[in-house]
């Protein structure tokens, strides 16, 4: 069968950005303001992004809690990350988060207040200080004000454009991005000296997840294929408290105020009790001090173990006993969640008067592409920010730290990319032939008369990841999963078929392209999980259940031909080391109490 070369439109951008969440938008705004001609690709409609789904809690040292400081925020970040964070990135996050929160207010966001010029603060997962700002419009408000800033600047947004690869020259320098316009089924090559990947995480690798359907780890896989390194990719954060049913809502986060109860504003108070089907408060076995107010990793694992060991509900959850006394403040602060509880569970649950079924769910990809503090990856011209980048959160992320992360590093990636392109100067269009050759490969499933449908393969991968590379892991199961992945790669991927003949919004075709990305990242996750022979943060090995100080180090993954090169590497600390606050690693909790 002779297949004609696919048609390809050629376009130019100084800086090409993939991802329409806050990291991508903040990068676009920064690159535009630095004088670059920017094009932003959104895989779906521009509002379909993970930021929009967030509760929008924003950790920053606002000055309104006099006990808090940037040093304390930094120390909390490292404590939560169990000491393997990239210290330099964590420091930048603590230092710049508040300035970026003010940027958002300048864009038009109205942070919650207790006084006209005083922000309302609360506690979210794992921190030792009352530090998180927020707004009633949550992630929706953050994305709306940013989108209107994009519109005001005339930044071009291409909806339904999925980045499939970055194209490099012989020296490995990025010369552009290959994308498919899913709404027309047309290939586009964006000739560009700098590409910023802000495509978010990989939550779609798991059967039950909290993120949007588009988060298939595309950008991380693209960077891996381009030669960039991944760090901490074995760490996947699970939110402990999410909906169990109906099917469409399964895995969606139930928000922390309902779970935290009075602890939401008082570090000494207890969170809502969690009970298994024997009525036992199982969390006490896992964290006798913080109990149900423990960090997300500990709680999610505790719940999953109850479910796996047969002490869950028939629907596959455990029971959370909320505090009805916080209902009024909950309704005021998070009205959307009260509505969700009402629709999904009933009025008594919505009023926090009856036990609520909860289960853990894949939330956030802690690892990602290795970058420096200006979001430069090891590949010249390739920048990565937001959830797709690794390092800042280490082995576990503080609740409320994703929002400042995407603002702080989104901006930095945009500034650095614009500067990089400016220094490079004008260059001729290169890489079209490589782009065309890659596009032709990705057309294969469209022309195959028979084979396996992509949704079926996606489900197989999701089940393997949920069962063996999720909250509970072991050597034998990880090896088994790697073997299964190899089989899928060799036997199944070359036999994918697409039912629809139309090129317009062909979901099966999109999923066929996503599958390679899912498999690339799933394999990297399983391989590095196998390597980390200890338990730390979000990574729990039943065969190595204790933390091992030898492993206060990062695992870095790089693709070498068809194989993954896995390397243990020392944690990136501050330069000079004396810049680490004297208080660290002493937990700062004492100061708060």
């Amino acid at each position, binding site marked *: 069968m002779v297949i004609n070369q696919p048609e390809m439109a050629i376009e130019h951008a100084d800086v090409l950005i993939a991802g329409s969440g806050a990291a991508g938008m903040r990068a676009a705004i920064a690159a535009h303001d630095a004088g670059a001609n920017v094009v932003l690709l959104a895989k*779906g*409609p521009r*509002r*379909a*992004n993970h930021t929009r789904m967030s509760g929008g809690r924003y950790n920053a040292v606002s000055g309104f809690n006099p006990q808090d400081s940037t040093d304390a925020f930094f120390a909390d970040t490292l404590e939560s990350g169990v000491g393997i964070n990239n210290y330099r990135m964590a420091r930048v996050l603590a230092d710049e988060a508040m300035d970026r929160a*003010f940027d958002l*207010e*300048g*864009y*038009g966001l*109205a*942070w*919650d*207040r*207790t006084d*006209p*010029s005083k*922000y*309302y603060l609360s506690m979210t997962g794992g921190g030792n200080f009352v530090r998180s700002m927020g*707004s*009633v*419009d*949550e992630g*929706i*408000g953050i994305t*709306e*004000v940013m*989108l*209107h*800033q994009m*519109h*005001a600047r005339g930044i071009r*947004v291409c*909806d339904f454009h999925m980045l499939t690869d970055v194209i490099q020259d012989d020296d490995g320098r990025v010369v552009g991005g290959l994308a498919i316009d899913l*709404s027309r089924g047309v290939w586009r090559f964006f000739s560009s000296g700098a590409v910023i990947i802000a495509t978010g995480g990989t939550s779609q690798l798991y059967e039950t997840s909290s993120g*949007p*359907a588009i988060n298939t780890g595309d950008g991380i896989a693209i960077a891996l294929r381009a030669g960039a390194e991944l760090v901490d990719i074995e760490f996947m954060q699970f939110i402990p408290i999410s909906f169990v*049913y*109906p*099917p*469409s*809502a399964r895995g*969606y986060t139930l928000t922390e105020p309902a779970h935290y109860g009075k602890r939401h504003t008082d570090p000494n108070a207890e969170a809502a009790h969690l009970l298994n089907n024997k009525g036992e408060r199982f969390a006490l076995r896992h964290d006798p001090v913080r109990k149900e107010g423990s960090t997300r990793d500990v709680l999610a694992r505790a719940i999953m173990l109850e479910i796996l060991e047969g002490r869950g*509900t028939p*629907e596959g959850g455990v029971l959370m006993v909320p505090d009805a006394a916080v209902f009024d403040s909950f309704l005021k602060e998070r*009205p*959307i969640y009260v509505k*969700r509880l009402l*629709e*999904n569970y009933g009025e008594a649950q919505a009023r926090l008067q009856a036990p609520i079924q909860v289960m853990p769910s894949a939330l956030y990809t802690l690892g990602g592409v290795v970058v420096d503090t200006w979001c430069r990856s090891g590949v010249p011209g390739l920048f990565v920010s937001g959830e797709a980048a690794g390092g800042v959160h280490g082995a576990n992320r503080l609740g409320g730290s994703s929002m400042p992360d995407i603002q702080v590093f989104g901006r930095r990636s945009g500034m650095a990319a614009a500067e990089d392109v400016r220094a490079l100067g004008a260059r001729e269009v290169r890489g079209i032939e490589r782009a065309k050759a890659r596009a032709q490969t990705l057309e294969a499933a469209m022309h195959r008369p028979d084979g396996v*449908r992509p*949704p079926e393969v996606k489900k197989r991968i999701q089940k393997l990841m949920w069962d063996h590379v999720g909250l509970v892991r072991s050597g034998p199961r990880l090896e088994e999963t790697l073997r299964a992945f190899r089989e899928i790669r060799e036997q199944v991927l070359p036999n994918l078929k697409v*039912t*629809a003949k*139309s090129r*317009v*919004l*062909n*979901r*099966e075709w999109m999923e066929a392209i996503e599958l390679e990305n899912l498999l690339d990242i799933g394999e990297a996750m399983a391989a590095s999980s196998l390597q980390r022979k200890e338990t730390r943060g979000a990574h729990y090995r039943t065969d190595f259940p204790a933390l091992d100080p030898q492993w206060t180090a990062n695992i870095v993954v790089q693709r070498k031909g068809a194989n993954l090169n896995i390397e243990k590497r020392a944690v990136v600390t501050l330069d000079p080391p004396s810049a680490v606050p004297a208080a660290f690693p002493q937990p700062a909790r004492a100061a708060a109490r």
Partner: protein
Amino acid sequence: MTTTTITVTAEIRRFDPAQDAEPHYQQFQVTGMDNMRVLDVIRSVYENQAGDLAYQFACRIGRCGTCGVRVNGVPVLACQERCKPHMRIEPLTPFPVLRDLVIDRTEVEARYSELHLTPQRTQAYTGKAEAIEPALAEHLCHLDSCLACMVCVSACPAVAERPFDGPAFVLKLRHMAKHPADHGNRLQQAVDGGMLECFGCDLCTQLCPADLSPAQAIREFRKELVFGTGKES
């Protein structure tokens, strides 16, 4: 807390503008939990019966606002609407259709862009907390939590008959009008966008998946038209 199952019939509008002269309807039966959403039905059809179905969703929890469809003629978010025994599922009107259930939002985004929905400041932002009363901040956030899902625009009888952009756009203008830092003439923009064509039927408010009231925004603007905005523009 156990759940029962239900079998529903879904008639889905199929249309590929590049290939088909006319749209047609295809019928499917789907069995699932009785509190499943319309989106669960559509996803099941795609996964098990019609791999060539074009549909759109992302968050599945009523936040991205991209899964809007008409169910038995009523615009809804597919992820929020509980399934019914018999459903005719169609794309949102009056928008151009890309394929099957997915609309082309190009003109919608262009309209938002033209409205300049950033605070029009007379003085540059100081980079510190602005003085906003807590209750007003909360109100601003409610207005800003519009999903831009186009459910209200699709439902609005005035949009169908008269030169009116639609309730969603007035709501966003109202957000800016209430923002202390904004000095744009939002009232004039609302009038230019056809606000006065609104019948006052309140359908937009009744159907809003985010529980907002575009109708109230329109009423407030109309009041200002008579009594003034009390704000220098």
